[in-house]
């Protein structure tokens, strides 16, 4: 079997090129900051960034000047407040203009489903009586061929590259995840290339012992990258908590464009890779993010000969 394990620098260099459409997904959980920071370090430009909730990860990428456009459904710092860098780009064109293509959550979910299943559009009962179709011409209404009534449709989304974080995968990319699964599977199937980033690389037998837990089959995965704490400051269920202190500090420092550039210099450009970032954070801070234990009862798949 093909060994897809590569390091982050090689994965980004090989798969993420200027001008591409990129999806680093993960709903509050599993947000791969390690990949985002590597993209910033490698100086990519003109990216279209798709994500339901841009979160700090795209706030930082926008501030670093890698993005020309966002495709999204909720622009907030979850549980904290605004995304000030994206707001600065939208309200004042700092560091430059940012094009927006905006949906509701269900619209984004539908775009990924249509993308994953090679459908020309996804019908959903939404958007009637809202201003969203007025500002986003991709949201349209068609006649239901059976009932004759009107239904909203959204187009498929096919990211050039998806970067998805999870607890574990084998070297072929069979990826297992638990916690908030969001649209991870749909994004993987919708995208042309898929990079999975995991906390643990495990033997194939670990995967085979619990096949229902495999969210993304290796069949659609191009590269596996092993980066413990790679989703920090977001979280990975059972491995580490969200670093809420960093989310709250970002709310304050990101109000000032100069302080953001200083932060990027210190925490992204001046560190060699994610391990150096973690070393800089310090072991005790990471230790404090580790949760207590709450294991599931094991189940029995049975042996059938």
């Amino acid at each position, binding site marked *: 079997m093909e060994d897809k394990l590569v390091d982050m620098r090689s994965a980004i260099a090989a798969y993420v090129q200027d001008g591409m459409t990129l999806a680093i997904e993960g*709903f*509050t*959980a599993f947000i791969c900051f390690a990949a985002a920071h590597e993209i910033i370090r490698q100086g990519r430009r003109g990216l279209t960034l798709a994500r*339901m*909730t841009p979160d700090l990860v795209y706030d930082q990428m926008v501030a670093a000047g890698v993005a020309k456009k966002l495709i*999204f*459904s*909720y*622009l*907030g710092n*979850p*549980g*904290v407040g*605004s995304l000030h860098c*994206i*707001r600065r780009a*939208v*309200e004042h064109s700092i560091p430059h203009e940012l094009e927006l293509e*905006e*949906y*509701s*959550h*269900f619209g984004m*979910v539908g775009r990924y*489903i249509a993308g994953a299943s090679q459908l020309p559009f996804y019908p*959903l*009962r*939404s*958007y*009637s*009586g*809202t*201003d*969203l179709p007025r*500002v986003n011409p991709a949201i349209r209404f068609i006649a*239901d061929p059976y*009932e004759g*009534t*009107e*239904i*909203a449709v959204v187009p498929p989304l096919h990211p050039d590259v998806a970067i998805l974080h999870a607890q574990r995968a084998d070297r072929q990319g069979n990826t297992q995840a638990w*916690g*908030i*699964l*969001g*649209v*991870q*599977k*749909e994004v993987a199937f919708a995208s042309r290339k898929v990079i999975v980033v995991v906390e643990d690389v495990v033997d194939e037998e670990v995967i085979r012992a619990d096949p229902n837990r495999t969210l993304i089959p290796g069949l659609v995965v191009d590269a596996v990258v092993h980066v413990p704490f790679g989703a920090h400051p977001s*979280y990975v*269920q059972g491995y580490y*908590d*969200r670093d*809420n202190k960093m989310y709250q500090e970002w709310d304050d420092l990101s109000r000032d464009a100069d302080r953001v550039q200083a932060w990027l210099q210190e925490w992204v450009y001046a560190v060699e890779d994610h391990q150096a970032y973690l070393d800089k954070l310090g072991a005790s801070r990471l230790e404090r993010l580790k*949760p207590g234990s*709450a294991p599931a009862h094991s189940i029995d798949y049975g042996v059938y000969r």
Partner: protein
Amino acid sequence: MSGYSASELMIVCAARALRGVRSVLVGVGLPNIACNLARRTVAPDLELVYESGVLGARPARLPLSIGDPTIISGARSVMPMPDLFQYLLQGGRIEVGLLGTAQIDRFGNLNTTVIGEYAAPDVRLPGSGGACEIALHARRTIIITRLSRRTFVEKLDFRTSPGHLELDGSRPPSGVARGGPGQVITDKALFTFDPESHEMCLQALYPGLTREEVCGHVAWPLKIADELSVVEPPGENELAIIREQLDSGGMYR
């Protein structure tokens, strides 16, 4: 007002509005505390559903966001996002949706997208998230927001989530059995919607407030119920549950 805060009374009013309800789609913060209070008082069978796909959460700490890992551990179910939007919401399984807003008009339409022009906004707000679909698919919605002229506006800058649509000729998507906004809960008064005209209507004042004061915070000539009442202050039991169990940090004190 003595002995309790306006926020605590908001929590209590939102909880009371959930009497007998079995499924509610909820966010974090004040609405979350209201749902937890309802479950301990007027709605013992209430199932809290989070937009992140979590049902029957049993959080060991106050969740900071709807994606907080504390709502996963010990939950009854965690659904992928397509299941949540396709089957639970669009499938009509959610009885009540709780929504916040930056602007609301007299028919309960909501704006959480921009202040000013969309193309060149004065303030860029978060946008819809799931709010548009919650507004369309929950069998009814309860809007929770503080009362001010900046929020209660004559005309929205942007319509993110539909209220009572049919008034301007728009119709809800076909196949959607929704009641639309049922109640607006603020820190000064409660509002309902007239069953005929669907216009927002002042229903009850918080103790110590006058109708003139409330009308002064609303940008349009406000309809007032024939039988305007005064909100029952929080009971001892309600306050004890909030202060000892749900808001022990005193954020809403």
